[in-house]
């Protein structure tokens, strides 16, 4: 038997740390800080992410509801959102998540965004490395994916730097985030052997 038959019975730590970040599952009460980060960043999110909360800024109450819903999805092992908190001052700096799990493999997809005021300091790379390690070592993933709009150079750079391999450019497989035109999607992936090879020999950016 491969895969995970009953993911709800996996005992999964709800938080872990990287050098500068506390990475943890959402909790009731996180809505306010998350909403403030979204407000600051919505002009960036709108370009690349089609989800309604990236297109139109939520109210703090809507964000709080979504935080609570995601803590339930965490327990059900259906979706893993993580908040990124800077250790030095506790500031909420963005999110990184494990989405669309296919437990029969297991495979998950990493998503991420960073608040506008702390861009360019390597926090996303650090978070992706941490969440990827969590996926391979704690969730026993066999394969991980990162997908992004082909024009989103910064997002693609994160995937390459984390050692993911570009497997495909899917032409016209989606619409742009605002729905106005067709777009191409970059599909990056890493498999388990690749992850442990990188771990032993150092990550090679691709």
């Amino acid at each position, binding site marked *: 038997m491969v895969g995970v038959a009953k993911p*709800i019975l996996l005992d999964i730590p709800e938080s872990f740390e990287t050098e500068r970040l506390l990475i943890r599952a959402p909790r009731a009460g996180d809505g306010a800080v998350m909403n403030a980060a979204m407000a600051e960043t919505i002009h960036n999110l709108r370009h690349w992410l089609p989800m309604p909360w990236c297109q139109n800024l939520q109210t703090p109450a809507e964000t*709080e*509801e979504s935080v609570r*819903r995601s803590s*339930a999805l965490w*327990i059900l092992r259906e979706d893993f959102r993580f908040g990124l908190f800077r250790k030095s001052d506790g500031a909420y700096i963005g999110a990184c998540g494990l989405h669309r799990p296919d437990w029969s493999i297991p495979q998950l997809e990493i998503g991420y965004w960073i608040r506008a005021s702390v861009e360019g300091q390597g926090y996303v790379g650090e978070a992706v490395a941490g969440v990827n390690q969590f996926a391979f070592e704690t969730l026993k993933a066999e394969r991980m994916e990162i997908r992004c709009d082909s024009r989103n150079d910064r997002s693609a750079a994160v995937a390459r730097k984390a050692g993911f391999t570009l497997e495909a450019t899917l032409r016209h497989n989606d619409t742009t985030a605002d729905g106005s035109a067709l777009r191409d999607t970059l599909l990056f992936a890493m498999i388990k052997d690749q992850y442990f090879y990188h771990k032993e020999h150092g990550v090679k950016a691709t």
Partner: protein
Amino acid sequence: MVAIKNPMLLEIPDSFQSERLIIRAPRAGDGAAVNEAVRESLDNLRPWMPWADHEPELEESEESVRRGAARWILREDLWLLLFRKSDGLYVGGSGLHRMDWSVPSFEIGYWVRKSLEGQGYVTEAVKAITDIAFMAVSAERVEIRCDTRNERSAAVAKRAGYMLEATLHHDGRDPNGDLRDTYIFGMTQRQYLIHKGVEITE
């Protein structure tokens, strides 16, 4: 009081106490305690509870408490576990179920483990959960339903001050597949406040 538009944003205490009990939402790790009590009580539960039709595996019980924790957050079902304060022993299950947030109304369900029957734990829990429903969750109505042949369950509803509103004839089948009648006991917020001696201003 008015309908609750977004129950997910309602702050509901997920742990509270009565004289002898800690009453709280399910958590990961509670499966073992629940499993042991269900196994001990299966003969008593089987005639009344459709879910008590087999000996649950430990993993099944653990899965169900984890699902219960998620449904709590989503406000779809508020399952409550009863623990004895003196020694932490799991006493049985209760909760606020089948809610209609537009009223809001709830149904209280309950069972007690076989070895602790007859000591008033269920009545104590039902009274405390009734308080939470009306005071913390602003219920307008709380219901208790049971098979008309389940005299002990009906006695709990009466002792907790609920009023028999109806006997529904042949409205369901018992776990053996035989037609059954159901008692509906109800309590309104007004009735609750009068019981508690709260002065009501119109």
